[in-house]
């Protein structure tokens, strides 16, 4: 297959990707903007046409960037100084060789398993909102919204507006933390106002702090939830999510360094390359260098086997990430102060760098777009704004840190890996993620550990960092046509 060439390819058309495309185009670079959804906007701007979403949609349409929806990028690899993206989609398989790639791959929800969470009618919080935006009817449905983070309120308000009956919003964080957070928000009056408006729109709904969904019960679908205080609520649906985790799979397969420090920009000095921070084991760079680790995979970080069998005999030191409750277990793509990763030509912006929200994504996307187009000095001008946004994100992460109890909801018989139906007991009998995969098939199904891997990382403290191409299931046709993955055989 002939490889199409591009100056800048942006993967993901949410706020970060849209902003990156706009910025790169404004510098005159030819830009291709790719997304696996039919429509752009990402998750946060799904079907939103007004306000900033509408303005940015219009801006990117006018920019002259080539926008392609329904395209799944399933592999990224350095080939001859360029970055090769292997893609599949309704329009067929394709290959794009780009001088610069901006990874704006967004985030997914963190699901923490609890008894009954596999029943039909139990959704993610953002998940249910996405489904309703795409036509799911919730009129008259009784719904409990539970988990953590500002998304709970936003989605409850949205569902209520769509005719649902919100029985309860259960936020696992204690009220004292929330008050501290509100204090930090004074410097962000816009966000404070936004929150107050949402609350006012569903003022009759109870917003309970220090509470969580302990169990879902039902038969052919969910019928009840049992709350952490033992109270039982009759429901037609449940929306439950414990915050977000960045999508770092594509970064991992191209060999980008993944770190573990909490998003510390704003508290730590900016201007140093983060790569150089190297303050210990948790900042260790993984996976730098493509195909450097021989037969086990492309990266050092691929797994314990790879690490244990290196020629230098370096033993695998890690099986555990940092304290799960503090959120530091979430792997983050490491970038320098103008959004360059450790792999030349690969930039990253938004949620894969640590959950930051729309404003952070817009700033970082713009910076990445400038840098990708060779206008690094323009990116530098945005460093203070980025620092402000990241400081806010860090405060948010502390506020909504996971409490011990919600990491312990799964019972021995509770299914953790939904693709392969692997129970908590079977996973808990293993020593690390790699072992759990080999022994139980946990994380080996079609979602490739996107759901259970993040859950296990949070619950067990194991490090889960083993994405490999293709990062989505693709047809043999697409693999063959793009030359993908076969070379790894």
């Amino acid at each position: 297959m002939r490889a199409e060439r591009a100056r800048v390819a942006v993967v993901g058309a949410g706020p970060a990707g849209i902003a990156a495309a706009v910025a790169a185009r404004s510098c005159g670079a030819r830009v291709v903007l790719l997304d696996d959804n039919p429509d752009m906007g990402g998750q946060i701007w799904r079907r939103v046409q007004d306000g900033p979403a509408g303005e940015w949609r219009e801006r990117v349409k006018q920019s002259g960037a080539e926008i392609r929806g329904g395209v799944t990028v399933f592999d990224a690899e350095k080939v001859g100084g360029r970055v090769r993206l292997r893609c599949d989609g309704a329009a067929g398989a394709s290959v794009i060789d780009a001088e610069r790639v901006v990874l704006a791959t967004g985030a997914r929800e963190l699901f923490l398993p609890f008894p009954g969470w596999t029943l039909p009618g139990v959704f993610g919080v953002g998940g249910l909102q996405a489904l309703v935006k795409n036509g799911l009817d919730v009129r008259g449905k009784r719904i409990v919204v539970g988990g953590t983070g500002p998304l709970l309120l936003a989605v409850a308000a949205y569902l209520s507006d769509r005719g649902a009956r919100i029985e309860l919003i259960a936020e696992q964080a204690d009220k004292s933390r929330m008050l501290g957070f509100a204090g930090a928000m004074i410097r962000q009056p816009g966000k404070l106002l936004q929150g107050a408006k949402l609350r006012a729109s569903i003022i009759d709904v109870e917003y309970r702090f220090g509470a969580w969904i302990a169990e879902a019960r039902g038969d052919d679908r969910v019928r009840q939830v049992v709350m952490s205080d033992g109270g039982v609520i009759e429901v037609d649906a449940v929306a439950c999510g414990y915050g977000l985790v960045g999508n770092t799979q594509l970064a991992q397969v191209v060999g980008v360094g993944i770190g573990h420090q909490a998003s510390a920009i704003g508290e730590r000095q900016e201007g140093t390359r983060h790569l150089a921070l190297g303050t210990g084991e948790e900042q260790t760079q993984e996976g730098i260098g493509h195909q450097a680790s021989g037969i086990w995979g492309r990266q050092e970080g691929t797994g314990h086997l790879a690490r244990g069998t290196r020629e230098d005999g370096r033993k695998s030191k890690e099986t555990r990430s940092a304290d799960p409750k503090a959120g530091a277990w979430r792997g983050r793509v490491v970038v320098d102060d103008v959004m360059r990763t450790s792999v030349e030509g690969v930039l990253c912006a938004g949620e894969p760098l640590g959950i930051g929200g729309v404003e952070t994504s817009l700033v970082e996307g713009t910076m990445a777009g400038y840098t990708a187009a060779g206008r690094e000095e323009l990116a530098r001008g945005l460093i203070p704004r980025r620092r402000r946004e990241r400081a806010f994100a860090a405060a948010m992460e502390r506020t909504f840190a996971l409490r011990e109890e919600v990491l312990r909801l799964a019972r021995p018989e509770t299914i953790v890996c939904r693709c392969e139906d692997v129970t908590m007991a079977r996973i808990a009998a293993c020593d690390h993620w790699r072992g759990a995969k080999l022994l139980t098939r946990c994380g080996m199904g079609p979602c490739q550990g996107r759901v259970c891997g993040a859950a296990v990382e949070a619950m067990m403290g194991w490090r889960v960092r083993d994405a490999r191409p293709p990062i989505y299931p693709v047809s043999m046709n697409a693999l063959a046509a793009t030359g993908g993955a076969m070379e790894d055989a």
Partner: protein
Amino acid sequence: MGTETREVIELFIDERSVRVAPGASVAAAVMNAGKACRASVTGERRAALCGMGVCFECRVEIDGVLHERSCMIEVSEGMRVRTVDAG
């Protein structure tokens, strides 16, 4: 559905005619029809969880193609969908 439109798409879910607004996802159509999506490897009924193409719980058969993520695909006229609840 937010979009006011008179146009309606007819598709078939487990051989039964279903009419939905254009632009809806197959997952929404399936669940509005009171159906779940797939059977898990141990036979549990499962339906959409993440709504954004990540979890693969909403897989159904669409026009003879197995394991399609119904949350990522829009309904189209005459589409034939087969779920775990097909008779």
